[in-house]
């Protein structure tokens, strides 16, 4: 379903917005038309606010110069907050992982966002990740502990391995988040590898 080609039955700006919407992930032609006609009939203010939000996204959002999380301005709110524990850095693959860990409410330290994981298959190598930037921080900042919170899959483990090797000579304490059972879960339903990891990572009570 394309509105812009052939005989144009719909006004050009309408067709153009429908086409732009349908380029977005998860939005098909039907949803794209619905959104477009909604905006056409909505208060002008709403369309302006959306347009401004889109422009701001591209123009104002940058990477924090310290932890490489997405932010507005020089430092992200976490790096700019002196009340955060300056001696711990939690290393994650993506900005969304920061949000996930923040939601736990149990971590008060700083972050470092790698922007990906090691995956030669996808053409992602060490130099494509913010690893040298992390090493520079560990050298310059009063860091006691680096927590590796990359994903517990093949690529995440490969990235953690690389980080451990690079961090070890710096004399900093390196830890890895543990893998285990979900809260509210049943042992009976856990897959054997998760259960095995949970057993290996057991602790004294």
């Amino acid at each position: 379903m394309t509105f812009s080609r052939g005989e144009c039955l719909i006004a050009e700006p309408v067709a153009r917005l429908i086409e732009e919407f349908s380029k977005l992930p998860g939005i098909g032609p039907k949803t794209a038309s619905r959104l477009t006609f909604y905006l056409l009939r909505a208060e002008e203010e709403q369309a302006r606010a959306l347009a401004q939000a889109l422009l701001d996204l591209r123009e104002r959002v940058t990477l924090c110069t310290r932890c490489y999380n997405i932010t507005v301005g020089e430092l992200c709110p976490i790096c700019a907050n002196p009340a955060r524990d300056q001696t711990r850095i939690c290393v994650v693959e993506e900005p969304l992982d920061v949000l996930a860990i923040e939601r736990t409410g149990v971590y008060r330290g700083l972050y470092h966002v790698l922007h990906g994981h090691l995956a030669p298959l996808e053409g992602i190598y060490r130099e494509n990740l913010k690893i040298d930037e992390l090493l520079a921080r560990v050298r310059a900042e009063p860091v006691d502990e680096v927590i590796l919170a990359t994903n517990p899959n093949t690529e995440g483990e490969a990235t953690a391995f690389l980080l451990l090797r690079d961090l070890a000579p710096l004399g900093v304490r390196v830890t890895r988040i543990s893998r285990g059972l979900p809260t509210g879960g049943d042992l009976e339903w856990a897959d054997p590898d998760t259960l095995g990891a949970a057993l290996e990572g057991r602790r004294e009570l």
Partner: protein
Amino acid sequence: MYVSQLSLRDFRNYQRLDLHLDPGITLLYGPNAAGKTSLLEALYFLATTRSPRVSADRDLVRWDAVGEAGVTPFARVAAEVQRRAGRVRLEVIVQRRADEAGQLSAASTKIVRIDRRVVRAIDLVGQLRVVLFTPADLTLADGPPSERRRYLDITLSQLDPHYVRTLAHYQKLVQQRNSLLRAWRERRRPPRAVDEELAYWDQELAAAGGYLLAERLRAVRDLNGIVGPLFQAISGGDAPLTIAYLPGFDLEAAHDSGTLATRLGEALRAARPEELARGQTLLGPHRDDLAFTVGSVNLGRYGSRGQQRSVTLTLKLGEARLMRQRSGEAPVLLLDDVLSELDAMRRAHLLEAIRQPEQQTLLSATDLSDFNPAFLAAITRLRVEDGRVYPG
């Protein structure tokens, strides 16, 4: 274990099917392309989450399936499996995906449920254990090595949840490592610090590979205890059959997973120049092979057509017996139109082997003349025609 109930919706040429199955022998007969093989395929799919016939899951969805309002077409396979530990309900849905323009694309998604709970596809493997025997298996002895590796992998994956997970992890490692080696070979990446960059992939590949090797060697050892005499009986007096595992490097008689991992790691380092030159991982379980010998004759190369058929039949029955030995429960045997491929003696052996207590077998045939009346009287018969199943 046995399947007591099979339900299909828009699977292959079945629009809807609700089929009760008996714990013993069931013969599916009817003309070609009626849907006999699809029934066996459905059970194999539930056991392994893969189809033995197609590479793309979307082909499992009936061609003119329409789905429901606002939903793309999907196929559904569900079964009730009676096991010693109790009853379990398995279900897989393959749903075709639409592209941005609303047209059906080549992609599909798979939803897997055990007792109505959504799980990962890999969690399904081993819930229902099957041994499938089709005419395509008759080239097991002289076909490509990948088929013989697959024979071991499918057996072990159904028996051991750790094996199937390690195998998936290992295959991912090989892919990542291969693209690194290829990038160097094609000069898309300067070959600096090669050892350092390979360190993680080598270490993990060796650890996972060592485990897979140990399990495969153990399976071959156990199988040799089973297939030797079985082959003599089936082939009528030849020497016993021996399976040999052929690794791509010298194992130095190691058989535990740790030592094998060390050996694989060393072998990988020794093979580095050649791996860099060829741009791929040349050693490890993904390159190994099996050899079948009777006396001193390699059957893959020198066996007669009849002998090779005996080998396949022996391996398939051996696989079933190994599963029974290790798990304490017989797997479901799925025999797809193989009787017409076997001579009278081998056929008699096969029919004898499936007439055991607690052995569910589904076999398909185009007509009933391959069977004697006494056999037919003792089993359940189902007539399959044009995507429908009728009693008798």
